[in-house]
């Protein structure tokens, strides 16, 4: 059974209606009369926030909406929440809906946490008796027992979010909308929220999830929808969709790089012309193996005899998290830069990275290893790391050491050999 149905939904907003006061309209009319050539700004400017989008979410399924800003993700949430109506198409939500959007938006600063739980519950459409029944759970989950009779204006913003999440999620909704809220609380609470969301999914709650943190998306959702400029570009399993999205981000980056490349920067005297991996500018598709060597080739051109310099390289995950930093200043290598083109290579014997998308950034530093000579982030090579882990629903880190497990069971008097199990780099 479908919990959420979106059928050919379009939504447009009219632009250009910002000036509606009579004096400014009159002024515009006068201006138009004096200069007949100029068009008035009050045209029929229409923004199609959504353009013929269709999808459905079954009971107990979780759908992520990904895409750049202005893609229409928030508009979809607003339509689902029944805050606004579509211009065309049909939106249907079966059952009780709850939204983790702007947590604590309905809180009144002068009321206590207790009063606000009831108030916020009422706004979400929960009966008072039901909140009474679940009140202890809610307080428990928020971890605010000590402050529940304190006015909310004395709460920290994190405490408000915690209480808001507790109310919105403790009511067993049939459909739950989550909009970029888990970024607010501390790490421990985010974790608690994620496990609460997973528990709800198990109970049959359908989730529609919006976040720019693709790792969170991967962890929470099985299906995803990639939106751009109000259109649905692709729909499918989270891994596939996120790969398509990241590929587009990468292409966009590459396009920007190409534009910048046309205007060489002589400022530092050195310029990195390309960063390649195993001879290719990017390794998408099946990607690199974790257990085979990888060569990073950093080609540069120097316009002067520079003398001694250093090179640093970052390996970063697609969300920008630095996985490692490698610098020639720490290695036994002396780089003397002379005018002309040269190449610095860096060899990874084993990548030891979890499956996912990454990129390498490299830059030159001067002799003191403190002054950056080439802007970072201009040349970077993207690559994917393949592995069994790609289908795993949760993200379990960035680093895959070759580690070994052992277990010494109880009740074993006789000295038996411990059971060994090897965890290889590509296993989880």
């Amino acid at each position: 059974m479908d919990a959420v149905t979106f059928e050919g939904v379009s939504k447009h907003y009219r632009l250009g209606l910002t000036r509606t006061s009579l004096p400014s309209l009159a002024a515009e009319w006068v201006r138009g009369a004096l200069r007949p050539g100029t068009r008035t700004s009050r045209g029929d400017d229409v923004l199609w926030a959504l353009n013929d989008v269709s999808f459905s979410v079954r009971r107990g399924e979780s759908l992520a909406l990904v895409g750049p800003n202005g893609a229409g993700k928030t508009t979809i949430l607003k339509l689902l929440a029944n805050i606004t109506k579509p211009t065309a198409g049909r939106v249907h939500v079966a059952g009780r809906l709850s939204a983790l959007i702007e947590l604590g938006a309905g809180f009144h600063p002068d009321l206590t946490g207790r009063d606000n739980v009831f108030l916020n519950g009422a706004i979400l459409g929960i009966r008072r008796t039901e909140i009474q029944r679940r009140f202890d759970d809610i307080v428990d989950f928020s971890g605010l027992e000590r402050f529940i009779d304190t006015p909310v204006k004395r709460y920290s913003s994190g405490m408000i979010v915690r209480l808001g999440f507790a109310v919105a999620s403790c009511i067993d909704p049939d459909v739950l909308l989550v909009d970029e809220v888990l970024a607010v609380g501390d790490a421990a609470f985010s974790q608690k929220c994620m496990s609460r969301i997973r528990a709800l999914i198990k109970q049959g709650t359908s989730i529609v999830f919006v976040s720019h943190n693709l790792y969170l998306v991967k962890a929470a959702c099985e299906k995803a929808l990639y939106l751009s400029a109000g259109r649905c570009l692709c729909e499918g399993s989270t891994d596939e969709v996120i790969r398509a999205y990241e590929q587009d981000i990468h292409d966009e980056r590459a396009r920007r790089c190409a534009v910048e490349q046309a205007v060489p920067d002589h400022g530092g005297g050195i310029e990195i012309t390309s960063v390649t991996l195993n001879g290719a500018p990017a390794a998408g598709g099946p990607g690199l193996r974790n257990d085979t060597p990888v060569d990073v080739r950093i080609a540069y051109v120097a316009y002067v005899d520079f003398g001694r310099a250093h090179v640093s390289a970052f390996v970063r995950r697609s969300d920008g998290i630095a996985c490692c930093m490698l610098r020639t200043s720490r290695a036994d290598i002396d780089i003397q830069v002379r005018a002309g083109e040269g190449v610095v290579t860096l060899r990874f014997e084993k990548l030891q990275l979890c499956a996912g998308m990454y990129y390498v950034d490299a830059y030159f530093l001067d002799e003191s290893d403190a002054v950056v000579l080439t802007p970072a982030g201009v040349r970077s090579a993207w690559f994917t790391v393949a592995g069994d882990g790609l289908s795993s629903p949760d993200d379990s880190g960035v680093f895959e050491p070759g580690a070994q497990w052992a277990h010494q069971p109880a009740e074993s008097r006789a000295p038996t050999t411990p059971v060994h199990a090897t965890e290889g780099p590509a296993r989880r």
Partner: protein
Amino acid sequence: MIRTSQTILGSGDLLREWTARTIRARYQQSMLGWLWAVVQPAAQAIILAVVFTRVVPIDVGGVPYFLFAFVATAPWAFFAGSLTDMTDSLVSNMSLVNKIYFPREVLPIASMVARLADLAVAAAFFGLAVLFYDAPLPLGPLIAMPAVVLVHIALTTGLGLAGAALNVFVRDVRPILALVLQLWFYASPVLYPVEKVPASLRPYYDLNPMVGIIDGYRSILLAGALPDGRSFALAAGISVGICVAGYGLFKAVEYRFADVV
């Protein structure tokens, strides 16, 4: 189905919570607190009493002028206060309206109910004032009191809902309302008795529903008589019509609120 069937009728809990929130927020960090419900109309009645007994005496038919004025200023304070609060109720909670769905009429109606609590406090004060002046208060006609209050509520609700909805789109509603209330005050029998209005003007004058309503309060509470049937029926009809129209307007544009940022 949660989506289409939601109106104020299914939201009793929310109305109660929001009303409590409104009342508590209103008297937060206020020394007089709910006493303001009395102070404001009483002060207005005292000022009117001084002006219209000492400076320009008006014949109000033997009733103490303070009582004569207070039975009108207290309902007027409810009327004007409600309309002002209701008109602001959506705009000042736009962050909520933009984020979560609930029947939007709860916000303006809760503002009105909160003012109704003030009216109840003022009514209790009126009882004390009657004892103080040792004025007669026949209990029989009080039976008609709920009808007058309901008509008054209907009129206030209809206008307030329309004001709240329109104010989302055009903020001019707020200053226009202040102006209209000022004119309306003098076009209603608050500081003078209805009988002072020339008979030739009465057909038009009676189209103001506040005439029938205030005259109704006065007949019951001061004259000890049932309200004048014709003028009250007219007020009731107009008020109910305005209530229905205001609610209809509100529900018709409800889904555009979130599109106006």
